């Protein structure tokens, strides 16, 4: 057992309001610069939809992630042959039009235009080429809220029956915020010929070393989530850094901080690094369970002992116990990995969403029979759709999670109105009253510091005295003569 700690995010899709505030906070701080304009380390997608880059889930095209080759894992895009062949050309990498051509407007013309016969406007131009764009053709959220549903939502690979979105009886939409998953088995890291990518030992954050990266772009292709981007200005790959400068100093990630829907939870998970590969070899339907088994119980004395041996501090172990992420992923089993079948063991987790009851649409709109709190069978979002996204097709795992949410609602309604509760329903959903209370609190009144339990990082290993003495912590990076 090789006990490791990682700082991890959970997204409650049932609460996501699709507002994209997270995307902007990330953009403002990290990618508001030339070469990174088109990058959205954090983005939010409407589901059903094709997302960003368009149809990123289509690994037949993009060849991201891992596949099981006999009893071993293999990067889908790479054997020995293709690696050399694609050194200077990444055939599977998304093109700029799969992302979008970043645009801007000639705003200065509004104050600057000469007198004319018609009203001046600010025309669009490309942020890459500087050339005028007559018609904007794409953006990072082009199919927002079912925009162009017949073109985009209909192409969602998770949607088996395209008719679903055409009819008011069955139409649905939800949101899917995405960051880098900081996987346990990151394909990007494995793919890098320069070994520029690495997973930080102390917190599991996956980074691209900007000094080592040679811009081969294997990582961009290998990541099945398309969360490693190529900066055309610096010629290097860049990606979500889990806001390590913030997290290291006890601040929450900018995206989670700004999540006004309060859907995000940040906390520590302990896992067994020795168990990762075996878990990734399981069949699609068993992957979620295998993934859960890799995560270790921070209350287990043996786990703690091994963790300390690996240099994990008591403060991190305390944080792991208080971790809302552990509660949601492991204890309550409601938070699930996105597309586990890509086999990277993603360390971002999603709680599936409830949805309105179905209806029948004849001359009038008629809701299906349902109770005060609708039961699972009457909901709009096909279980298969959610299973395709979050459980490698295992519908039982989705049903288990949704039943918990429903039972919780029924229980709390009874408490709120002082009506008799039905303990059987809770039990059937795998909850008891204490568990329901804890889950309820996490979903509702839990404040910022309960939703985000950021462990303190100890930085005194890094020559603190010298750094403290130097003017400005790193401004004087190089002494005369260029020595570090």
């Amino acid at each position, binding site marked *: 057992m090789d006990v490791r700690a990682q700082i991890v995010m959970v997204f409650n899709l049932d609460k996501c309001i699709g*507002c994209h505030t997270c995307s902007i906070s990330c953009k403002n701080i990290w990618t508001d610069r030339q070469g990174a304009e088109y990058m959205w380390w954090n983005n939010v997608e409407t589901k059903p939809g094709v997302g960003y880059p368009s149809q990123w889930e289509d690994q037949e095209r993009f060849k991201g992630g891992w596949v099981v080759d006999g009893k071993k894992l293999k990067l889908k895009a790479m054997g020995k042959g293709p690696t050399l062949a694609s050194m200077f050309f990444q055939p599977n990498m998304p093109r700029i039009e799969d992302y979008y051509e970043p645009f801007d407007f000639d705003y200065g013309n509004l104050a600057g235009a*000469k007198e004319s016969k018609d009203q001046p*406007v600010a025309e669009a131009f490309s942020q890459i080429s500087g050339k005028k764009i007559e018609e904007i053709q794409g953006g990072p959220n082009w199919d927002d809220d079912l925009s162009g549903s017949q073109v985009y939502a209909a192409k969602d690979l998770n949607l088996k029956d395209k008719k679903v979105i055409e009819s008011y009886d069955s139409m649905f939409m939800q949101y899917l915020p995405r960051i880098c998953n900081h996987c346990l088995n990151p394909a990007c890291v494995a793919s890098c010929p320069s070994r520029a990518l690495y997973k930080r030992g102390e917190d599991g954050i996956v980074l691209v070393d900007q000094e080592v990266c040679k811009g081969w772009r294997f990582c961009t292709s290998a990541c099945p989530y398309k969360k490693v981007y190529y900066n055309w200005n610096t010629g290097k790959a860049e990606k979500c850094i889990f806001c390590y400068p913030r997290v290291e100093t006890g601040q929450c990630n900018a995206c989670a901080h700004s999540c006004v829907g309060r859907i995000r939870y940040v906390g520590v998970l302990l896992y067994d690094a020795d168990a990762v590969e075996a878990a990734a070899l399981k069949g699609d339907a068993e992957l979620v369970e295998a993934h859960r088994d890799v995560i270790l119980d921070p209350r287990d004395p043996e786990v703690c002992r091994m963790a300390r041996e690996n240099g994990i501090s008591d403060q991190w172990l305390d944080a792991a116990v208080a971790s809302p992420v552990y509660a949601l992923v492991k204890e309550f089993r409601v938070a699930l990995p996105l597309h586990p079948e890509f086999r990277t063991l993603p360390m971002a987790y999603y709680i599936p969403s409830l949805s309105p009851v179905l209806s029948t649409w004849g001359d009038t*709109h008629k809701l299906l029979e349902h109770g005060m709190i609708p039961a699972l069978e009457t909901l709009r979002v096909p279980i298969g759709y959610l299973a395709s996204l979050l459980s490698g097709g295992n519908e039982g795992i989705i049903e288990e999670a949704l039943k918990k949410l429903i039972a919780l609602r029924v229980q709390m*309604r009874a408490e709120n109105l002082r009506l008799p509760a039905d303990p059987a329903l809770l039990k059937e959903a795998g909850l008891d009253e204490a568990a329901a209370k804890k889950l309820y609190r996490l979903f509702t*009144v839990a404040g910022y510091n309960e939703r985000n339990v950021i462990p303190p990082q100890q930085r005194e290993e890094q020559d603190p005295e010298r750094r403290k003495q130097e003017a400005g912590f790193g401004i004087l990076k190089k002494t005369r003569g260029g020595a570090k």
Partner: protein
Amino acid sequence: MSHDRIKDDCSAHNRQWEELYRNRAQYDKVVRSTHGVNCTGGCSWMVHVKDGIVGWELQANDYPQFDGTIPNHEPRGCTRGISFSWYLYSPLRVKHPYLRGALLDRWTEAKKLFADPVEAWASIVENPESRASYTGQRGMGGFRRGDWETATEIIAASSIYTAKKHGPDRVVGFSPIPAMSMISYAAGSRFLQLFGGVALSFYDWYCDLPPASPQVWGEQTDVNESADWYNASYIVLCGSNVPMTRTPDAHYLTEARYRGTKVVVMSPDYSMASKFADAWLPVEQGHDGAFWMALNHVILKEFYAERQVPFFEEYVTRYTDFPFLVELTPDVDKAPGAWRQGELLRAARFERSASLEHAEWCLCVADKSGEVRVPNGSLGSRWSKQEGNWNLDMKDVVDGAEIDPALTFLGQETRKVLFRFEGEKDALREVPVRRVATADGEIVVTTVFDLLMAQFGVSRGLSGDYPHGYDSDLPFTPKWQEKHTGIDAETLVKIAREWGENGEQSRGRNMIIIGAGVNHWYHNDLIYRAAITALILTGSVGRNGAGLAHYVGQEKVAPLSPWTSIAMAQDWVKGSRLQNTPTFWYMHSDQWRYDRNFVDYFKPETGDKMPMHAADFNAKAVRLGWLPFAPHFNANPLELLKQAKAEGCGDDDATRSWLVDRLKSGKTRFAVEDPDAPGNSPKVWFIWRGNAISASAKGHEFFLKHVLGAPNSSATAKEVAKGQVQDIVWHEKAPEAKVDLVVDLNFRMDTSTLYSDIVLPAATWYEKSDLNTTDMHSFVNCMDAAVPPSWESKSDWKIFSMIAKKVSELAATHLPTPVKDVIAAPLLHDTPGEIAQRTVQDWKLGECEPVPGKTMPNLAIVERDYVNLYNRFLSLGPGIGHLGSHGNYYDADDEHEKLLRELPNRSWNGKSFVDLADEKVVADVILSLAPETNGELAHRAYRNLEKRVGKPLAQIADGAREIRVKWEDVTQKPRRVINSPIWSGLVNGGRPYSPFTLNVEHLVPWRTLSGRQSLYLDHPYYREFHEGLPTFKGKLNPALLDETEGETGLVLNFLTPHGKWGIHSTYSDNLRMLTLSRGGQAVWLNHLDAAGAGIEDNEQIEVYNANGVVVCRSIVSSRIPRGAAVMYHAPERTLNIKKSKKSGKRGGVHNSLSRIRLKPTLMLGGYAQFSYYFNYWGPTGVNRDSYVVVRKLK
């Protein structure tokens, strides 16, 4: 992954490159501020500054907690707010003063000829060619960078010129909702009120004012803070898309669901909010009222008729007008034996109560024995000399005896009463009655409740044209509503039963979150009243977790009283020139000329002496003192008063009589009767904090044409009012370019800026200090400067003080001594003026004498001191000591004294005043003098109220008396307000604010005729339109709107709901938002509608009607209902807009397709809750009953 790619060594040496991103994340300081945008967020933000530049913003997360059982507020703030930092340094920023090139040329030429700026201005505007040289270029580019000196000189010269030549009431200003940056708002309004200019209203103009709230509650709007949603156990969203438009509050909705709250979403499209619904009901847009009417039918039948719920009965008996008596009158003309709904019965009709003061305004109930009694709390007792009876006790005002009122006369006599419903056969329905003896004979009365039962079609075994069951297609059954809503009757019954059960089980914790999707229809008041009825019937108003949570544009200036005093300069001049904008622009942008008689689409029973055109109706409303109108008269008010003096009027009373005589004889006329006369239009128009020419301008193309004279208006409507209007003078050619000068203070080049003459660079929200409140939460937030104003920009407060200074300089020559001015102000709500007109009598028709403040407007004579205008602007005036609002008042002279000691002083004319030069001082003044942030003043205000009410109230302020909130406090963290009688909700003990809890818990009356929640509106005009009781009227018939006449293509209902990527037009031009959406103006279409017109996703389309043309791109989606085109409010016409094939000109903006239609029943006045107040009463700028043609741009 092989373990060698985990890097355990985190030493600086091994991973030194990581400093790269650490450096990017570092910053020098963090400053708390907020966004002064027209939304209700009121979010506290931490602005990160690095190297003197604003880097980014993140939400504050230090809001004080409630009581721990309710989720807290962090992190408030949405995708729009977090994009704001983009604006500061973008090329869209207005960095310097700009002037229209031709205007600057004319000015330079004129200044060579005339040293005096006022004479120079006269030479330009009095020469038609010279004037047209710049007005004709509005919006066509050609700005030139100017300087502050020139810009303010032109502005001051034009203002002084206008005051002298035409009157100060031709200088007008528009700025939206104050609450989000109330001092910035006050900057312009204070200048205008000192000048004698006009402040234009916003809430009614945006159509965000729900007139049903004044109608039912006598309250402009009062709503739950969003945290209180969490207390509701059944929530219906109706015309409100919470995640999209109340983004920072949405978590309370999602979180309430985990508490087991059922969520029903009524929305014609599968909206963002629908995602959170348990039940989504795609109710036909504009017909939500039919759903609520039928729901009420089920509630009345199952929870009132078949079974009685004691909680409900007690509630409606005490808190509503249900037990009040209504007189029935024979109506033999209509049908033999038919009776008609009459007035609410008055105490004046009975000998025992006739001598009560204001007996005509005291209403009656019957006790269980059938005796007529006069309970406490009617409006008469609010204004009587005898204090202490204005409360909700069921006690007889005459003898103080307890009353056990009868809710119904069922089981006694009946009469057949006529009920009329739009699009349905007349119904004669039996109603239980009693005969009672009055001083002038026996009459037949019933109760409001009995009428309500009959109106809703619940027979209770009575005969007549009642529906036989839920399946009978008669008003207002579940079956009946199917054809209007598209919702199955069975589904409706299910929801209705749940609604009733939840109301019963939770003791009134049903909530309706309602908004623009409903409130922007012509008959919005009816839809709202239907919904409010459902709340009232389940005891769900005035409780936590209950009520009508109306959210659209409803921002709340929490420290209202001192703010009003400063903003309207009432510390110097009592009497303000306040204008309801819908009628103002209806007349001045000449939209009335294109509007046909309203009786074509909104028909009264007899039209008894009622004008048939909205313009005529408005003229009547102005002369009877129902609504204001600026300019007031067809003459300069300053000149009129000079003339009065010359003709021997020695005092104000004599002057008033002189003016009344002139009005009566027609020597002087109200300007509203001739809005197209050259002298009767606005001349100088200030715009600040808003987008008055585009996002706010209903009928934008009519504005371009008539107000601005901009050459590219695409309006093609016909002038159908010719020959239809009676009282309004018709000019054969409608004027164009009515306004001499348009001044816009802005930080971005938006559409209004583009069409203005002078653009002044305004500081952004990260560059100035201000106060921010909202009713979505109960905290006071600061706006504060993270960096100084960039480039040449200045705060609004500074800019208007510069303009004021220039005006005073020029006044030394032109208006050197104080002059008299007269304000014609309507009869006001919350004053005795609201009981001025017991019946409608028109002095012009000889029905009565013109008496100011009774049968016509108040005529307030005030003094203008232009030379000291600047001094006054920057000095806290002596009138600040006496404050109040909503009919409450308190003295604060001692607090004022303290402020004089604590704050910087300014001295002039030998006196010292608090110096208001610094906005932070203004903030301190407001906070120090508001009961919401000064516990002692709260205590005083309750003390005063308890005298009137006759019940102990001062204890409500207990525990808060020591609280004083100051500017420094709100820069540290958001501070919660305290209980104040200015507002109807209570917030002590960590309790979320819910409106009317003061009324329910402390028996303070609502400010209505009955003092109760009013479901029966007995004004004769309401009965004329069959709107006395809640009813249903559908969307206006497109054939009568003159918008798409003769068009055969794809004709769609044009909807402009609030959108995801902007707060109105702000942020809609922000690159962040453009990138996350479709990069510019777009219209959403249903996929089948689009296919029928050969339109694919993201194609250029042209959308047009008689009002104008829009060119934009299509978004085709199955989530949009057939028959509707959705254009989210509000884009700008400044971004990448193509030329229209139809007009040959640049395509317009959403408001190019809209125009104003005024509902006359909202123009009444002088009658209880139907009395004017700024942003409280008046017709609203409805815009949903509108139709467009959509085609490919080819």
